[in-house]
C-alpha cells in the first residue's frame, strides 16, 4: 500500500510567498527524501533527512521531520515562478526501497 500521503494535493501561491507541503507516512523509516518533478520530466532529488535528524536546510528549502508523528514538511521560501512543479516525498524503510507519496502540485504565479 502507499506509504506517503501529501497535503495539500495542490497549492497556488504568488511569487515571493512561502510554500509549505506536508507528508505523512505509516511505518518506520531510515530516511525521508523530497523530489521535484517538472511537467513532462523525471524526478529530481532535492533533499534527504535521516530518521535521527529533525530539520535540514538547503538554499531556500527547509525540511522538518517528526518521527513521533510520522510526518515531514517541506518549506520553500521566497518562491519563484520556476518553483512551479509537483513535489513528492519518498520514504526509505528497512527494505531499502523508496516509496513515494501522492505529490503536491505547486503553482507559483507572477
Amino acid at each position, binding site marked *: 500500500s502507499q506509504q506517503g500521503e501529501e497535503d495539500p494535493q495542490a497549492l497556488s501561491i504568488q511569487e515571493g510567498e512561502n510554500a509549505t507541503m506536508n507528508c505523512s507516512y505509516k511505518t518506520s523509516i531510515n530516511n525521508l527524501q523530497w523530489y521535484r518533478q517538472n511537467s513532462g*520530466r*523525471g*524526478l529530481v*532529488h532535492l533533499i*534527504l533527512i535521516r530518521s535521527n535528524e529533525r530539520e535540514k536546510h538547503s538554499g531556500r528549502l527547509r525540511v522538518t521531520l517528526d518521527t513521533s508523528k510520522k510526518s515531514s514538511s517541506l518549506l520553500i521560501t521566497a518562491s519563484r515562478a520556476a518553483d512551479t512543479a*509537483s513535489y513528492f516525498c519518498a520514504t526509505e524503510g528497512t*527494505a*531499502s526501497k*523508496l516509496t513515494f507519496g501522492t505529490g503536491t502540485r505547486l503553482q507559483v504565479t507572477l
Partner: protein
Amino acid sequence: DTAVSQTPKYLVTQMGNDKSIKCEQNLGHDTMYWYKQDSKKFLKIMFSYNNKELIINETVPNRFSPKSPDKAHLNLHINSLELGDSAVYFCASSQRGGPDTQYFGPGTRLTVL
C-alpha cells in the same frame, strides 16, 4: 552529459504488441530501478537490480520482464501490451552503501491503443 537516459521518449502501440524500453546510466551506480507513474501521478516501483541481480520485484504482471546486460543498463520488455499499461515509465539509478538518493531518467510515455 545525460546521467540517466531512456529511449524512446514516446511509444505509441497497439494492444497485444511487444515492446522494449531501454535505460542507461553513466553515473557508475550499482543499482537501477524501473518505476511506473500512472495518470494520477502516483509513482510505484516495479523492479530494482543491483549489479545485474534482481533485488526488488514488486507485484507486476509477468508480461513485464527487466533485463540487465551490465550494471549500466536496465531494459524493460513488455509482452502482450494492454490498455492499462499506458503510463509513464521512469528508470532511475543509485549508489548502494549509503542513503538511497535516486537519479531519474526523463521518462518514457507509453500509450497503448
